[in-house]
């Protein structure tokens, strides 16, 4: 378990109150969980991701992560269609712990409304919430 100062919070992504992040990539958004979330969960042993093609509402549950502590739900930071999921997490769920913002990504979604992204928190707002 780390102090907030020791965790990584890149500023090229935006954050949800449920600790997911989203990053624009062409017409899509890549989604994962924050360094804070993976640190709180502890070692992740299984990641359950949605089928591609699934339509998600904002804040809808899109999967779950199982750590040695508990199973936690994942919530979509923005509405849209699931275009791709990170199949590499099936065999290597530890990537979420090691590289939450790169190799540990979870899904790519085609947004229903790009304004959802703008409404998410930037780095400073997310840090302020964590320190709240």
């Amino acid at each position: 378990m780390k102090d907030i100062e020791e965790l990584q919070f890149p500023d090229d992504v935006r954050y949800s109150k449920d600790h997911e992040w989203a990053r624009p990539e062409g017409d899509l958004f890549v989604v994962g969980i924050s360094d804070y979330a993976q640190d709180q969960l502890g070692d992740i042993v299984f990641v359950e991701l949605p089928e591609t093609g699934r339509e998600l509402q904002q804040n809808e549950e899109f999967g779950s992560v199982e750590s040695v502590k508990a199973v936690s739900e994942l919530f979509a930071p923005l509405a849209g269609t699931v275009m791709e999921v990170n199949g590499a997490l099936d065999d290597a769920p530890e990537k979420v712990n090691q590289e939450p913002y790169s190799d540990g990504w979870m899904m790519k979604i085609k947004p229903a409304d790009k304004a959802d992204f703008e409404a998410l928190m930037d780095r400073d707002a997310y840090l302020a919430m964590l320190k709240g």
Partner: protein
Amino acid sequence: MNDKVRKPSAEPLLWEMGARGRLAFSLPERDVPEHPLDPALAGEGPDFPDLSEPEIVRHYTRLSQWNMAVDTTMYPLGSCTMKYNPKTNDRQAALPGIAGAHPLLPPPLSQGLLRLMFELEQFLAAITGLPAVTLQPAAGAQGELTGMLIFHAYHGDQGRRRTKILIPDTAHGTNPASATLCGFTAVAVPSGPDGILEPEAVARRMDADTAGIMVTNPNTLGLFESHIREVADIVHAKGGLVYADGANMNAVMGQVDMGAMGVDVLHLNLHKTFSTPHGGGGPGAGPVCVSAALAPYLPVPRVVLTADGFTWSDDFPRTIGRLHAFYGNFGILVRAYSYILSLGADLTRISPLAVLNANYIRAGLRNHYHLPYDRPCMHECVFSDKHQQAHKVTALDIAKRLIDFGFHPPTIYFPLVVPGALMIEPTETETKETLDRFIAAMQAIAAEAVEDPERLRQAPLHAHRRRLDEVQAARKPCLTG
């Protein structure tokens, strides 16, 4: 010589011992003629270890000595009610007429066993205030499924299929799982700021498509749902039913009338409240008690008393059917029956003592650990690792360090509504001296978290095994020998 001294913590696997051809069992002399085996059925035999009887006995005896059990230490595993299992229970279950009874014996030759089941049902009805009981479900979760099947059958008879079930966020995790398995959609109800259900939160969600609510009372925070009667009235007014998860019955046994509280269906865990052995996936029993209106739906066959004595009856046309081969885990039923009869009227003293013990621990540790809901608890108390996190010490570290002090760890990271939860349930079993030793150990650990946090992160230091690699075990489980 030194290299031949076996470290006390080294125990070979069964496959690392023995020698080819060694046997621990002599097959009885064959009393049927030899017959050739169809070669299609033959193949490589299984890879069993070749061991003598003393090798096996010593191996398992050594392992058992490394174990922590309710027969060796206090086992405050919250939500599990690890109370002492009185030895008289095992003696009764081992009586030849009981242990040797065959489940296919006809009722005229099983009158004593049927009477035991019939009376146990009556005892559980008297204890809960719900008049009709099935002993069939093999565990609490199967009892929950039984309850959900009864909800479904009842609403079907009312001519209206209902698809949703309300489940508070302080419920046991099996509740939404059981409801989902039965085809219902679980709707979460957040608990209020004081950790219990607010009637308005239930009223906002209860509608004509909702089959009812599943409540655990006291809830997983160890708090009594004091608005339960109001909640039940709200659910009933919309045509729904109330399911109570009796996993926490050790807080209220013989103290509350579940029927009067508005409960329609309740399961009991005989392996918790009624002192039958528990853990390691061994047999449990999850009897289900229901109101008179729901009695027709109970599983069959049911024990009935006729002019000719006790017998089985399948003649319940609205039954949800059978849930278990034969009649449940009978040996466990015998032990619960023994527990009830041996305590008699003293059964009502169990819950007050269990609640007193939990509050004694709560009071003894409240200045050392964060109490997320600081009010008197029922049979268990929930702390969190919030104060220790400042030193990067987690609930897991605290639990592991308790092993060094000779105690089984409490439940950790549950309930989910408390981050870093430490859930302690002492049960009525423990003496004041044991509770004092436990409190002293927990206080010492809280002090260590400040002075020497690294020691906690390394714990257990004195156990036969140190930190096990739980991640590797979960990611790449080895399920064979």
